[in-house]
Structures are given as structure tokens and as C-alpha cells.
């Protein structure tokens, strides 16, 4: 046999070394396994993991302030919140232009709602101011419109002025900048040709006017789907013009202007000559004196970054103060209490599940198979029954005119007029949830206890142990893994429960989940809901990790 004398690596049938051939086969096997798993993994990532990640992101995201008041946020940066004075005219000026566009896009109320979570009263401030944006420079607008026999009322003329005529190169930079600003503000795509490019000359001479008109043009073309040249400009365009002309050096600028509509604009500038320059600050304060309030400005400044820890601070009863995090006022502190209560009640529920589950699991594991299987039905039937059926059953049982109270009254243990209050409080939640989660405790305990050899107990007794010693020193330690598995499972499930506390918990027996649901669907404070959810998720994942270490996820069994 020549094979036996051959030196070097062993070869497989096709001549490649066996080692490499085996490695390839192993690799093939791994790839095939991964290919089988891949569709599901992608599915879960898309439908489940991504949404969770989105929630985590939302808990720190705070773009709305910077998106809605893009200019104000920048000018406000320089304001010293500690100075005790309201910001200067420049801030109010940028606030006017930001708020004007936001009010047209109906985004200012959203911002108001957002800031109202941090400072009560801001919502109505934004809402009422949004309605009164026409108050700014009323006389100025009128003067411009009346100048040169109303020529500046003409939409087409404005369009020509702003594009700077056919010879103008056009300022695409400005258009691009305003495009992205509008896109952030409304959340819509602002791409495509809008049939307008601001003129290079005019945007250099009157930058504020060009910005205001470009905003208008973008909004009209994209949001309303109209032709820019046919629409009358917003008041903000007139205000911008008045502001530029009346600013120091404005007179020279207008005199030197030679582009389209120069005559009309100069006439308008002349009409403006005897009017006071517009004071944005004064007008804002006239609309609502809260605009002078330092606290409001401080809130806007604190929440102007695009990411904030504010929601997390809020969910542990703190807030962003002037110098870092500080505790909320006593009467606003609810979440720590709620977290504590959730923990405490989950512990009580887990404890009562252990107490009730252990004897049942023991008897199921020690009875003859046939009887045990029959009794197992009593455990599995609740397990398989709809959660809402069980919750409604507990509502029927526990309410004041319910079955338990009726029986107690009939037995004479409780007077008819002193029926026990067992629902809409913590007791109701604990009883109902213990019942609902009990099978989750019994099943893991049972599967562990089944593997404990009964002869150990007999051996202990024959060596002289009492019943109790035999149980406590021999049986119980072996059943601890079952208790651990069941407890973690029940605790994880109970900590995030929503339906049962909502129905039988009243106000005192609700969990953190109910608060999360409230913030999602009623108060619409999604960021706070996401932050609360993130904290809850962190706790659950920690427990999940512990469960994996102790029990192993592979060993989860159902029924």
C-alpha cells in the first residue's frame, strides 16, 4: 500500500489537503446556517430592533427648537441668561422672522407645546403671538403699499425685483440655505425647481429682504403649489424692506440701487422716511408681556441644542436649571415615586407568585404522572386564556358589587354597607397580576423539580433528618434554579405590565408603563415617554442578561 508510506498532509479524494477541505466544508455549513437565519434576523431588525433604537434616539432628540427658531437660536446664544435682563433687539428681530414663517407653516404651536413641558405658559404665548404676526410694522406695510400708487402691491413686480431681472446671475447659495431651513422646519422635502432664484445683487444689498422673500417663495411654491410670481408677498417681506431701509446706511443703499423696480422702491423708501423704525422688542412685549420674561427666554436657550438630556432629567424628577441639573419642585415630583412603586409592586407580585407557585409546582412534580397531567390543565388553562378575559374576570370578582364582596356579605363577614374596596388600588393590581403571572412561575419551577430525584429526600430522612431539615437542606437548594428562573421571568413581565394595572389599578395601583402610555397618547410628550421607556428597558435588559446567565435563553420552555 503506497498510502502508508506517503509523507506530507493527508489528501482528500480531489487532491486538496484534507484539512483545507474540512475547513471549507465547515465554512459552507456556517454560511448555510446563517443564510437560513438571515431573513428572520433582518425581519426582526427592521420591525422590532429599529423601532426600539428609534425610541432610544427620541429620548435625547430635541431638534424642534433649533428647527423652528433656527435664527433666534443663533442670536440667543450670546445672551447671558444670568444677567437678569431680557435679550436685546437682535434676538427679537430674528424671532420675528422665525416665528412668521413658523406661523405660516403652523409649526409654532408644536414648538409651544414642546416648550410647555419645561415651562408652563409658553404654549399659549406662542399660540397667541402666532396669530398677531401682522401687528409688526402695520404702518410701514401700509406706507409701502400706498407708495407710487400701489405699484408695490403687484406680485409680478416684486418677483422681478427679487430675481434681479434676466441678466442677474442669481444667488443659489442663499436659495440652498433657505431650502434646508424650510425642510427642517416643516419636515417636508423642499427639493425641485420652484421657479425662483434670488438675485445676486439684491441679496447682497438687502440680505434680510432677500431671505424673507426666498422663504416666502419656497413656501408658496412647495407647500401651496402656487406660482411665485403670481402671489402677493407676505407682510414679513414688507417689514424686512422697511427694516433695511430705515437701518443706518439704508438710505444710501436704496439711493444706489439700480435694479428692477428701483423707482418704486425709492418711492416707498421716501414714504417710510417719516415713520419710526420698527422696534421688534416693543411690539412683542405689546402683544404679550411674557416676552420680556427672563424665565421663558432661559427655557428657550436651555433647550436650543439639538440633543438634550432634559427628558431623562425629567424622568427622574429633575430639570435643567440655570446652572446644571436641579430637582423639580416637590409638587411636580412623580416619576421617582412611580418607579419605586413599580419596583415594589413587582417584587410583591414576584414574592406572592413564589409563595403560591412553590407548593403547586412541588405537588405537580411529586404526584403520579396521570394526576399531575390532569392538574396541569388547571395551570395551563389560565396560561392560555386571553389576558383580557382574566383581567375582566378579576374586575368581576373584585368590584364592590362583585362576587367576592357578595360572598363575604352573604357569609356575614362584612356588612352590606361596608363592602371592601379591592379594586382600583394596589391590592387589586397585585391580586390580579399574581393570578395572571402565576403560571409563568409554576412552569419553570415544575420543570426543575421534575429533575430532582425523590430518593435524595428519602436518603436524608433515613439518615435521621426531620421532614423540615430534609426539605430545607436537601430539596430546597436543588429547586433554587427553578425559583430563580421563575422569579426573573415574572419580575420582567410584571415590571412592564400595562393592561391589567390600567383596568384594575385605579390611580394608586398604576405602573410606569401606564405613564408611558399616557405620554404617548394623551399628553403627546413623546420625548419623555421615550426617556421613561429607555430607563425601563435598561432595567429589563439587565434582568434579561441575568436570566441568560442563570438559566440560558435556550432553556426557555413553554408548556
Amino acid at each position, binding site marked *: 500500500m503506497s498510502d502508508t508510506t506517503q509523507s506530507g498532509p493527508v489528501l482528500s479524494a480531489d487532491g486538496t489537503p484534507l484539512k483545507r477541505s474540512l475547513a471549507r466544508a465547515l465554512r459552507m*455549513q*456556517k454560511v*448555510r446556517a*446563517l443564510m*437560513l*437565519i438571515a*431573513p*428572520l434576523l433582518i*425581519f*426582526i*431588525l427592521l*420591525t*422590532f*430592533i*429599529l*423601532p*426600539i433604537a*428609534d*425610541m432610544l434616539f427620541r429620548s435625547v432628540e430635541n431638534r424642534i427648537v433649533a428647527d423652528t427658531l433656527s435664527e433666534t437660536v443663533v442670536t440667543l446664544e450670546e445672551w447671558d441668561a444670568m444677567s437678569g435682563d431680557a435679550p436685546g433687539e437682535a434676538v427679537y428681530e430674528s424671532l420675528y422672522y422665525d416665528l412668521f414663517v413658523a406661523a405660516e407653516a403652523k409649526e409654532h404651536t408644536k414648538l409651544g407645546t414642546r416648550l410647555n413641558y419645561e415651562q408652563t405658559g409658553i404654549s399659549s404665548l406662542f399660540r397667541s403671538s402666532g396669530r398677531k404676526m401682522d401687528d409688526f410694522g402695520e404702518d410701514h406695510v401700509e406706507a409701502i403699499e400706498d407708495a407710487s400708487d400701489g405699484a408695490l402691491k403687484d406680485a409680478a413686480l416684486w418677483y422681478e425685483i427679487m430675481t434681479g431681472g434676466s441678466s442677474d446671475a442669481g444667488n443659489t447659495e442663499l436659495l440652498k440655505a433657505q431650502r434646508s431651513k424650510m425642510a427642517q422646519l416643516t419636515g417636508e422635502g423642499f427639493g425641485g425647481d420652484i421657479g425662483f432664484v434670488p438675485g445676486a445683487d439684491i441679496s447682497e444689498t438687502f440680505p434680510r429682504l432677500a431671505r424673507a422673500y426666498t422663504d416666502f417663495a419656497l413656501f408658496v411654491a412647495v407647500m401651496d403649489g402656487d406660482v411665485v410670481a403670481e402671489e402677493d408677498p407676505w407682510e414679513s417681506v414688507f417689514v424686512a424692506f422697511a427694516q433695511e431701509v430705515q437701518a443706518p446706511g439704508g438710505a444710501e443703499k436704496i439711493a444706489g440701487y439700480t435694479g428692477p423696480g428701483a423707482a418704486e422702491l425709492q418711492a416707498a423708501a421716501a414714504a417710510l422716511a417719516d415713520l419710526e423704525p420698527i422696534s421688534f422688542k416693543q411690539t412683542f412685549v405689546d402683544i404679550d408681556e411674557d416676552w420680556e420674561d427672563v424665565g421663558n427666554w432661559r427655557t428657550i436657550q436651555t433647550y436650543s441644542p439639538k440633543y438634550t438630556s432634559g427628558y431623562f432629567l425629567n424622568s427622574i424628577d429633575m430639570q435643567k436649571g440655570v446652572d446644571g441639573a436641579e430637582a423639580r419642585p416637590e409638587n411636580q415630583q412623580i416619576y421617582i415615586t412611580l418607579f419605586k412603586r413599580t419596583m415594589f409592586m413587582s417584587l410583591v407580585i414576584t414574592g406572592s407568585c413564589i409563595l*403560591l407557585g412553590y*407548593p403547586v409546582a412541588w*405537588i405537580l412534580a411529586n404526584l403520579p404522572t396521570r394526576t399531575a397531567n390532569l392538574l396541569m*390543565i388547571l395551570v*395551563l*388553562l*389560565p396560561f*392560555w*386564556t*386571553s*389576558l*383580557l378575559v*382574566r*383581567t*375582566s*374576570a*378579576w*374586575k*368581576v370578582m373584585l*368590584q364592590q358589587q*362583585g362576587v367576592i364582596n*357578595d360572598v363575604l356579605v352573604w*357569609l*356575614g*363577614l362584612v356588612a352590606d354597607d361596608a363592602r371592601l374596596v379591592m379594586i382600583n388600588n394596589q391590592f387589586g393590581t397585585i391580586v390580579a397580576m399574581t*393570578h395572571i403571572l*402565576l403560571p409563568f412561575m409554576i412552569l419553570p419551577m415544575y420543570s426543575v423539580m421534575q429533575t430532582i430525584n425523590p430518593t435524595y429526600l428519602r436518603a436524608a430522612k433515613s439518615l435521621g433528618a426531620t*421532614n423540615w431539615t430534609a426539605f430545607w437542606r436537601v430539596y430546597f437548594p436543588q429547586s433554587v434554579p427553578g425559583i430563580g428562573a421563575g422569579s426573573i421571568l415574572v419580575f420582567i413581565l410584571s*415590571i*412592564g405590565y*400595562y393592561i391589567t394595572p*390600567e*383596568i384594575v389599578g385605579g390611580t394608586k395601583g398604576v405602573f410606569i408603563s401606564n405613564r*408611558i402610555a399616557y405620554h*404617548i397618547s394623551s399628553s403627546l410628550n413623546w420625548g419623555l415617554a421615550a426617556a421613561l421607556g429607555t430607563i425601563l*428597558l435598561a432595567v429589563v435588559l439587565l434582568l434579561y442578561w441575568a*436570566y*441568560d446567565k442563570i438559566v440560558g*435563553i*435556550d432553556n426557555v*420552555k413553554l408548556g
Partner: protein
Amino acid sequence: MALTPVQHQTPAFTAAVAAGAGALFGLFVGTAQGSGILGLIVGAIVLGAMGFVLTGMISQAKPIRWAILGIFAVLGFLVGGMPAMVLGALFGWFTGWFIFWIATSSYRKRLPPYLTPGQVLWHFSFRVICGAIFVFLITPILVVMPLSFNAENFFTFTPEMLRFDPAGYSLKHYRDFLSNDGWQQALWNSLRIAPMATILSVGFGTLAAIGLSQPHVPFRRAIMAILISPMIVPLIISAAGMYFFYSRIGLQGTYMGVVLAHAALGIPFVIITVTATLVGFDHSLTRAAANMGAGPVTTFFRVQMPLILPGVISGGLFAFITSFDEVVVVLFVGSAGQKTLPWQMFIGLREQISPTILAVATILVGISICLLTTVELLRRRSERLRGMSPS
């Protein structure tokens, strides 16, 4: 089979135990009638006397037990009409059985002979405790059923119902369920969403479970952790995340969105049950099939599939019931157009509108009994196929 030879007890012992039981019952009946102490004394005396007398008549146990049952039933009827008669009969049956059980020492028969009386007492007390826990487990589900036949719009037992008066019972809540548009729409929605979600989770889940049970899978633990996570993450968090994300991509409030969400929630159950079935799967079978010329697809459908089918079906049933019972996620991800049965029940419970909920609950309990039976049968069949069960 008797482990311990027993002899009849003395009349005094039986009388004492029976008197104790009588005192307990008497206390309840007594407080119900106004005087606890009197009830206690009367109960103790009556049962004690019965115990004393009956110990001598063990040979005629059967007719005597019937007689006691009858007497107590009649007594009950005279005191409180129909409901009391049922209670009386039950009490009579129990008393008769209990006295003879004590008197003949039958309770000792099946226990090891070396147990002390204290241990015997503990043995039975423990069973009573376990019995009470089983009662706790099952009562809420049983209570719902008769209440769903209530003729009134109450969530409680009316006096007519307790008298077993046919007028107190009706099918009106079932009729309401079958004729009310809201409920029918909800049922229809549930039936439209659950099977679709089940198909998705079973399809993806079975493939992945087969992949996971291969001998060499890289990152097996991490993958498993991700795939099981929808079961572990609290529903409210899944719901919140899905609500935020699905509204971003326009799936919120659509049929597809709810189906995808429910499919994700059902997948862990499919993975768990199918991998459990695959643990006992003999991989030499696929190799044998390949050896005889079958391609991977043929092998899968003709060899592997029939063997793991029970696991796949019970995983599918789990996924189905998950979707069919699910309310939190659909509450957020769905809109009024996807209102499912549990959602409708949830609204009904919060606003407490009518016992139609209880009729629906009874129907759902019926469905879950069917599903439970199917899963249990499948599990046994699968164990038998793999030779893991002795039967």
C-alpha cells in the same frame, strides 16, 4: 393499593374531628344568620353526634351517605330555597364522605406506615393549601362563564340567577355580540390580522430555527438573544418604539403595520417551540436522504418537515394566540380601522359598558381550551415520534 394496614377509629376520635369540622362550617352559617357563636356550637354538636353514631354503622356507609345528602339538601331548601339546597346537598355529600373517611381510617391507607400523626395532618393540610391555590387559579375563569348568561346588564350574579330561575338567564349578550357591528368588525379584524401574522412568523421562524439548530452557528447566543427579545421587552416599550418608528415610515394605522408588529411579537414563540423539537432531531436522517439522492429542498419537505411539523404547528398556535390576544401594540400601532377583539374588550372594560364582554370572554375561553388541547396532543405526538415519552 394500601401501604398501611388500617383499623377503624374509635367513636370518640371520629366525633372529635367531625365536631371540629362542624364548628368551622357552623361558624360560617352562623355569621350568615346573625350569630357566629351559636352556629359554631350547634355545628360542633350536630357533626360530633353524627360522627359518634356513624362510626358504629360503617357497614352501611353507602345508603347512609345518600341519606345525609338528602337530609341536608331538604334542610337547605327549607332555609334558603334553591341556592341553599345546592349548598346543603354539597355539604351533606362532604359530611358523609368526611365522617366515613375518618372513621374507617382510609386517609391513612396510602401513606407510608412510619408517618407520625403530625406528619399525616401536614400531608393533608398541604393538599388543602394546594387545592386552594388551584381554586385561585381557575375560579376567575369559571366565574365569567355563568355571568355571561346574565339576563340583566350587570357584572354580578342577580338573585334570579342564584335561584336558578330560568328568567335570570338569557343569551342576549351573545346575541348582542353576534349582531353588534362594532364587535363583528373587531372579530373580523382579529381574524384578518392574526393568521397573516402567524404565517409570517412561522415562515421566517421555522427557517431560522433550522438554521440555529445546525451544529456550527457563529454568534449563536447573540442571535438567539435578539430573536427572543420581542418576548422579553415589555410590550409597552415595543408599542412605543413601533408607534414612533412606524409613524415615521407611514406604517402606523395600517393593516400591514399591525401584521408586521404582531409577526415580530410571535416569532420568539415559534423559535422556542421549533428549536425544542429540533433538539431531538436525528441529523443522520437528512444525510441518509442526501445519500439516496434527494436535494436539500426534497429532504426538507419529505424528511425534516414531517418530523418537526408538530413543533411548527404548536409554535404557530402560540404565534396565533399572541396576535389574537394582543392589545397593547395594536392600541398604538393600529388605528380605528384595525380595532381587534381585545381592543374592543379593553375599551369596554375601561368604560364598563355591558356584559357582552363576558360573553366574548366565554367564547375566547372556549377557543383557548381548543388550542390548549391541540398543543398538548401535538406535544405528546412529537415526544412519541422521537421516543422521548414512555407511553
